[in-house]
C-alpha cells in the first residue's frame, strides 16, 4: 500500500509539472495558429501522453481516458490534420483543468465523470479533421498476441497509423513486473521514463492474472502489456530497454504500410459505415448538451477553479538545488564541529576559548539559516503562469482585447508567500481586465490601440519583492470614488472634500467597496479589494495603487522575501515582552518626562504626539493589551517626586484617564531609572501611521515566527508568536490589527493632519536643531546631513591646529562653530555628536554637543538680525532663537583650498555661464546665489516667475540655464517653465526645477511642463552636478544644430 502511495506521489508530482506548463503552451500554440511550433506541440503531447501512460499503469481510468482524448487531438495537430484554433484549444484547456482537479484528488479521480470533456474534444476533432482521419480515428483494432489471445482490444486505428506515418515501428512489449523489473532492481516508474525517452507508449495493460505469457510464468508474475511505438529496430530496442528480444513483438513496422492487422472478426464483420454513423449520432445528441455542460464549471466560479486547483496542490515535497543541499551538509558539519568544541570547553575549568566558539556557532547558524531559507525560495513564475489563461478567458468573455506581458518570472519568494499570493494576484489581474482595460470600441475612441496591455512584473527593491500590475486602461476616477464613498457612508462629505485624489483612489481598499458600477459576473463576487489587501497584509506585504484617469492604473504589491524569520524590535508592555516587526517601524521617539505635557496633546479625546509639525495619534500598549490586572495593587506605589508632578499634570489634562495614571505608576515602580520618559514607537502599516507607547525597549532581534494555536486565532492584534533567547514566548504584534482593534482609522488621521497643516501652508524646511554652548541653538537643514555620529571627546585629535576624528581608517576634519562664527565655546563633555555632511567628495563633521530635535521651520527666516558669514539667518522655535548655519560658508572659511578646486571645475572652458534663478524665498535665493557664484556661475536672482520671465526678455542678457522654484506667487515655476519652453527663442534653455520636496507627482507635472531636471533645494552637489550636465548637453546640442545649419 505504501509503495502504491509512493507511486502516486511521483505520478502526482510529475503530472502537476506537466499541467503547470501545459496551459501556457496551449495558449502559445493557439496564438501561433497554423504556424505552430511543432516542437512545442510535441512537448505537450509527450507530457499528456506520459500522463496517460502512467495513469493506465496505476489504474486511474478517468485520468487515462481524458488524457487519451487530449492526446488524440494533439496528435492530429502535430500531424497537421487539425489547425489549433481556439475551438480546438478550448476543450484542451478545459480538459487540462479537469485533469488538474483529478490529480489533486487522485484516489477519487475514477469517480469523476469526464464524458463531457471527452465529448467536447471529440467534437473539436469532428469539426475540422478530414473524414478519413475521423474514420480512422473511429475504427477500432484489436491487437492479438503472437501466440494467440487478445492483448489489446479496441485500439483506435489512427493511433497506430499516425505513428507509422512518423516513421515509428509499433511493438507489443511484454514485461514481467517481477522478473524484468523487480528482480533487476528497476523501478517501474524509471522504466516508464526510459520508455518515454525512446519512443511513445500507445496503450498499456497490467495483467495480474499472469495472462498468456510465452514462457512458463511464475505463479506470482505480473505481466505488463505495452503497445509501444519507437523508431528503434527491434534488436536495438531490446538492448536499450534491457529486455529479452522475445518479449518484443513487432506489430506494425514503419516501412510496411499494410501492417499486420488481426482485426477481430467482430470488428471486420461490422460494416465500416455503421460505427461512423453511430458516432455521429452520438455526437449530434451531445451537440446540444455540450455547449452548456463544459461551460458550467467555468462560468460558475472561474476564480474558484483556480483556488481549488491551487489549494490542494500545496506540494508536500520540494525540489532543492543540489548545490544548496551541499552547502547545508557542509554547514551541518561545521555545526557539529562547533558543538564538539563547545562540549570540550564546557569540560575545562576556565572555559577559555568559549568566545571564539560562540562566534563560530553564531556565524554557522546564520549561514545555515540562510541556506535553509534558500531551499524554501521558489520562483514566482509558478504563480504567474496561470495568468495568461485567466486573461485570455476573461477578456474573450467580456469581449475585450487584452495582452498580458510578464516580467521577472525568476524572482524568488518564500514558498509560503508563493502559496498565499496566488489568490490576491488573481483577483487583481481579473480586476485589471474587468475594470481597467476598456472595450475595444472605447479604446478606439480614446485613440488607444484596441488591444489593452496588462503588464505584470516582479522585481526586487529595497530588500523586498515588488509585484506591479500595470494596465493601460481607463484608470480610476477619484471623484467617482469620493461620491461612492460618501454614498456608502465610508467617509463624510467634508472628508471627501478635503481628501486628495490619491487618498480617494486608495478608498478602493476600504471594506465594502466595489468600483464596478454594475456588479458584473466577474468582479461582483463579494470579494472586494479589501480582502485582497488583508490577504496581502497577512503575508507581511503591502499594496498600493496609483492611477491616471484615461491612462491606466498601477497596483504595486510589496512582499517580504520570507516570512519565517523577520527582524523585529522587542519591547515590553506591562509584564510581557512583545515583538514588533521592523518593517512596520518607521522611527523611535523618546520624550523626556519634562516634555511630556508639552508634546503630547489631546485631540477629540485621543492622545496625539506633535512630531515635526504633524499630529500623530498615540496608543498606549497597556490600553491596547487591556492588561489591567497587572497593576491591581496601587497601595504599594512608591512614586518619586517628579513623577508625582507628572502624574498630577496628567490629571489636569485628562481627569478621566484614571487607569493610565495607575499604569504609569506601576511602570515607575518597576523601572525607576526611566521614570516618566515615554518610549514611542512610530509604526506604519498601510497608510496609517501612529505611535505606540511602550514601557521599555529591548534589543532588535531576528525572530522566528511561530504560528498560534486555534484558540488564539481571533486575537487580531497578534500576528504570531516567537521564542526569545531565554526560552520564553513573546507575542508578535500586528500593527494593522492593533489600529483596527483600537478603531484608529486612516481617514481620521488624515483629518488630523489636515487640521495641523492648515496653519502651515507656507513652505517649510526640515532642519536639525542642536545646541552648542548652553542656550545657544543652531540648526542645519536635514538635507545636508549625511549622518550623525556619536563620539567621545577623547577621540578628537588635533593635527596642525585642525581638529580631526580618526574614523573608519580615515580622518574626518571637524569644525567647531566657535572658531568661525560668534558663538560661545562648547562646554566640556565626555561624549558629543558629530553631524557629518559632504562638501564635494569630502566629508566634514560639525561638532554638535547636544542634539535637540528635528523641526520644520518656515523658509522665510529672518536674514538680517544674526546674519554673518556662516549664518544665513535666524528663526524662533519654541520661544528660542535658532540660528541657521550655512555649512558651505563655514567650510569655505575652514578649507579655502577646496573651493578653488571647485572653481576650476566649473570654469573648465573659461566662461562664466549665466544662470537665471527664480526663487521667492529670500533665504533660499541668497543661499543658492551664494553657492552658484562661489563655483563660478554668473547668477541673476528673481523673486518670482513673473520677474524671471521679464528678466529673460531683456535683450542684453543671455542666459544659459534656468533654475526655478516651483511654488511661487504671481507666476509659479511650472507656468514659467511652460512659457519658456513654448517660446521658440528660449525653448533651448535647460530648466532645473528645485523644490523642498520632490514627490513623484510633482516630478510628473514638472516633466509635463518641460522641466529638464528636478532637484531638491539646497542639495548643493546634486544641483551643481545637474546644472553642469545640462549645460554640457545644451552646448552639445547647440553645436549640433550649428553643424546642421552649415551643412544645409
Amino acid at each position: 500500500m505504501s509503495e502504491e502511495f509512493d507511486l502516486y506521489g511521483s505520478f502526482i508530482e510529475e503530472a502537476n509539472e506537466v499541467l503547470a506548463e501545459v496551459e501556457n503552451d496551449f495558449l502559445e500554440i493557439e496564438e501561433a495558429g497554423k504556424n505552430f511550433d511543432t516542437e512545442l506541440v510535441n512537448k505537450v503531447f509527450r507530457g499528456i501522453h506520459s500522463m496517460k501512460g502512467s495513469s493506465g499503469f496505476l489504474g486511474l481510468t478517468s485520468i487515462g481516458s481524458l488524457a487519451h482524448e487530449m492526446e488524440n487531438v494533439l496528435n492530429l495537430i502535430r500531424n497537421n490534420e487539425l489547425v489549433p484554433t481556439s475551438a480546438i484549444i478550448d476543450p484542451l484547456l478545459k480538459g487540462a483543468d479537469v485533469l488538474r482537479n483529478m490529480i489533486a484528488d487522485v484516489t477519487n479521480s475514477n469517480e469523476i465523470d469526464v464524458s463531457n470533456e471527452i465529448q467536447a474534444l471529440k467534437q473539436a476533432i469532428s469539426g475540422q479533421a478530414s473524414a478519413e482521419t475521423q474514420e480512422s480515428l473511429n475504427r477500432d483494432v484489436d491487437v492479438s498476441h503472437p501466440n494467440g489471445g487478445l492483448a489489446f482490444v479496441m485500439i483506435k486505428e489512427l493511433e497506430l497509423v499516425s505513428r507509422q506515418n512518423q516513421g515509428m515501428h509499433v511493438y507489443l512489449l511484454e514485461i514481467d513486473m517481477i522478473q524484468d523489473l523487480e528482480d533487476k532492481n528497476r523501478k517501474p516508474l524509471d522504466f516508464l521514463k526510459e520508455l518515454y525517452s525512446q519512443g511513445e507508449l500507445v496503450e498499456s495493460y497490467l495483467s495480474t492474472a499472469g495472462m498468456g505469457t510465452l514462457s512458463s510464468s511464475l505463479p506470482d508474475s505480473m505481466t505488463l502489456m505495452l503497445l509501444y511505438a519507437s523508431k528503434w529496430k527491434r534488436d536495438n530496442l531490446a538492448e536499450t530497454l534491457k529486455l529479452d528480444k522475445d518479449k518484443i513483438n513487432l506489430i506494425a513496422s514503419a516501412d510496411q504500410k499494410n501492417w499486420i492487422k488481426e482485426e477481430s472478426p467482430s470488428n471486420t464483420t461490422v460494416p465500416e459505415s455503421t460505427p461512423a454513423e453511430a458516432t455521429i449520432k452520438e455526437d449530434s445528441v451531445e451537440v446540444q448538451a455540450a455547449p452548456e455542460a463544459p461551460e458550467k464549471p467555468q462560468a460558475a466560479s472561474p476564480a474558484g477553479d483556480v483556488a481549488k486547483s491551487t489549494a490542494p496542490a500545496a506540494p508536500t515535497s520540494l525540489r532543492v538545488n543540489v548545490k544548496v543541499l551541499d552547502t547545508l551538509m557542509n554547514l551541518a558539519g561545521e555545526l557539529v564541529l562547533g558543538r564538539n568544541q563547545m562540549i570540550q570547553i564546557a569540560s575545562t575549568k576556565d572555559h577559555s576559548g568559549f568566545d571564539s566558539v560562540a562566534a563560530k556557532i553564531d556565524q554557522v547558524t546564520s549561514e545555515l539559516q540562510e541556506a535553509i531559507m534558500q531551499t524554501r525560495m521558489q520562483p514566482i513564475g509558478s504563480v504567474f503562469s496561470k495568468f495568461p489563461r485567466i486573461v485570455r478567458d476573461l477578456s474573450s468573455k467580456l469581449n475585450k482585447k487584452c495582452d498580458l506581458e510578464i516580467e521577472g518570472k525568476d524572482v524568488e519568494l518564500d514558498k509560503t508567500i508563493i502559496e498565499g499570493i496566488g489568490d490576491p494576484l488573481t483577483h487583481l489581474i481579473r480586476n485589471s481586465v474587468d475594470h481597467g482595460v476598456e472595450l475595444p470600441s472605447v479604446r478606439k475612441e480614446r485613440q488607444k490601440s484596441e488591444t489593452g496591455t496588462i503588464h505584470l512584473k516582479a522585481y526586487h527593491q529595497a530588500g523586498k519583492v515588488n509585484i506591479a500590475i500595470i494596465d493601460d486602461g481607463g484608470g480610476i476616477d477619484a471623484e467617482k470614488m469620493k461620491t461612492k464613498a460618501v454614498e456608502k457612508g465610508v467617509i463624510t462629505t467634508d472628508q471627501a472634500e478635503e481628501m486628495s485624489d490619491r487618498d480617494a483612489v486608495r478608498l478602493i481598499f476600504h471594506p465594502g467597496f466595489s468600483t464596478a458600477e454594475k456588479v458584473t459576473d466577474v468582479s461582483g463576487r463579494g470579494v472586494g479589494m479589501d480582502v485582497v489587501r488583508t490577504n496581502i497584509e497577512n503575508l507581511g506585504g503591502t499594496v498600493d495603487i496609483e492611477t491616471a484617469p484615461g491612462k491606466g492604473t498601477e497596483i504595486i504589491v510589496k512582499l517580504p522575501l520570507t516570512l519565517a524569520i523577520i527582524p523585529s524590535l522587542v519591547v515590553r508592555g506591562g509584564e510581557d515582552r512583545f515583538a514588533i516587526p521592523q518593517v512596520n517601524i518607521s522611527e523611535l521617539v523618546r520624550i523626556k518626562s519634562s516634555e511630556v505635557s508639552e508634546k503630547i496633546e489631546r485631540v477629540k479625546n485621543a492622545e496625539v504626539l506633535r512630531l515635526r509639525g504633524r499630529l500623530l495619534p498615540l496608543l498606549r500598549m497597556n490600553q491596547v493589551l487591556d492588561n489591567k490586572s497587572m497593576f491591581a495593587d496601587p497601595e504599594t506605589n512608591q512614586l518619586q517626586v517628579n513623577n508625582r508632578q507628572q502624574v498630577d499634570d496628567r490629571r489636569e489634562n485628562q481627569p478621566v484617564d484614571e487607569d493610565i495614571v495607575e499604569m504609569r505608576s506601576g511602570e515607575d515602580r518597576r523601572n525607576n531609572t526611566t521614570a516618566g520618559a515615554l518610549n514611542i514607537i512610530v509604526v506604519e502599516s498601510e497608510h496609517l501611521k501612529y505611535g505606540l507607547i511602550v514601557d521599555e525597549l529591548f534589543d532588535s532581534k531576528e525572530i522566528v515566527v511561530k504560528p498560534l494555536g486555534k484558540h488564539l486565532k481571533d486575537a487580531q492584534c497578534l500576528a504570531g508568536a516567537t521564542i526569545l533567547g531565554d526560552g520564553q514566548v513573546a507575542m508578535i504584534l500586528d500593527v494593522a490589527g492593533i489600529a483596527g482593534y483600537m478603531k484608529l482609522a486612516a481617514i481620521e488621521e488624515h483629518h488630523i493632519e489636515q487640521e495641523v497643516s492648515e496653519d502651515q501652508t507656507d513652505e517649510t524646511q526640515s532642519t536639525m536643531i542642536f545646541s552648542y554652548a548652553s542656550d545657544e541653538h543652531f540648526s542645519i537643514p536635514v538635507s545636508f546631513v549625511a549622518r550623525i555620529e556619536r563620539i567621545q571627546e577623547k577621540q578628537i585629535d588635533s593635527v596642525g591646529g585642525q581638529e580631526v576624528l580618526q574614523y573608519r581608517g580615515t580622518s574626518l576634519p571637524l569644525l567647531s562653530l566657535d572658531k568661525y562664527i560668534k558663538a560661545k565655546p562648547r562646554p566640556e563633555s565626555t561624549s558629543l555628536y558629530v553631524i557629518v555632511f559632504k562638501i564635494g567628495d569630502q566629508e566634514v563633521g560639525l561638532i554638535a554637543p547636544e542634539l535637540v530635535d528635528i523641526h520644520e521651520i518656515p523658509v522665510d527666516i529672518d536674514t538680517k538680525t544674526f546674519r554673518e558669514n556662516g549664518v544665513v539667518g535666524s528663526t524662533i522655535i519654541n520661544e528660542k532663537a535658532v540660528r541657521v548655519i550655512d555649512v558651505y560658508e563655514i567650510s569655505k572659511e575652514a578649507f579655502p583650498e577646496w573651493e578653488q578646486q571647485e572653481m576650476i571645475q566649473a570654469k573648465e572652458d573659461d566662461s562664466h555661464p549665466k544662470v537665471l534663478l527664480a526663487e521667492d524665498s529670500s533665504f533660499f535665493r541668497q543661499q543658492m546665489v551664494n553657492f552658484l557664484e562661489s563655483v563660478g556661475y554668473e547668477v541673476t536672482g528673481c523673486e518670482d516667475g513673473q520677474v524671471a520671465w521679464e528678466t529673460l526678455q531683456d535683450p542684453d542678457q543671455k542666459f544659459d540655464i534656468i533654475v526655478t522654484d516651483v511654488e511661487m506667487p504671481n507666476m509659479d515655476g511650472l507656468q514659467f517653465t511652460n512659457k519658456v519652453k513654448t517660446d521658440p527663442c528660449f525653448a533651448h534653455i535647460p530648466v532645473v526645477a528645485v523644490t523642498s520636496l520632490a514627490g513623484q507627482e510633482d516630478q510628473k507635472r514638472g516633466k509635463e511642463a518641460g522641466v529638464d531636471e528636478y532637484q531638491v533645494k539646497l542639495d548643493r552637489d546634486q544641483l551643481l552636478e545637474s546644472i553642469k550636465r545640462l549645460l554640457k548637453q545644451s552646448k552639445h546640442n547647440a553645436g549640433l544644430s550649428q553643424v546642421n545649419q552649415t551643412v544645409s
Partner: protein
Amino acid sequence: MNDTKRHNKSGSELEISTFYIDGMLLGIDILQVQEINQHLEITTVPHTPDDVLGVINLRGEVVTVLDLRRILGMGESEITPQSRNFIIKAEEEHVGLLVDKVADVVIFKESEMEAPPANINNIDSRFFQGIYKMDGHLLAILTPQEILENSLELQS
C-alpha cells in the same frame, strides 16, 4: 462520543491518566495525552477568552494552555507547584490543559465504562466519555476534543 474507543491488543482495556481538579478525580485516555509537564511559565496572551491561560514554549512549538477548571465551570485555576500541563494531541496542534495535581494511571476494561449521568458535580455531561466506579468513588473520563472545541465555540 466514542471516537476514542479502540481495540488494543489485549482486547478492550483502557489506560486512563488521572488527575485532580478542585478535589475531583478526572481522567483522560492516555493515548490522547502527548505528555504531562511542569511547564508553568505561561505567557499570557492579550485579547483571548478567559479559558485561555496563555502559551508555553514546548520544545520550540508555541502551545496554547487552557484552564481546564474554568472550562468545566469550576472557577479559575491557581498555579501551584503541583500544577501540571496535560499536553493533548489535537487535530493539527498540541494544546495544554492545566490541572491541579496529577494522580495515577489506572487500567480498566472498556466494558466497565458506564455512560455518564446527566451531570456530574454540575458539569455538563457532554464533556465526559463515561465514568468508572472505583473503590468508593467515581472517576469521570473526559473527552478532550469536546473540551477543546467548546472553548473554541465560546470564542466565536
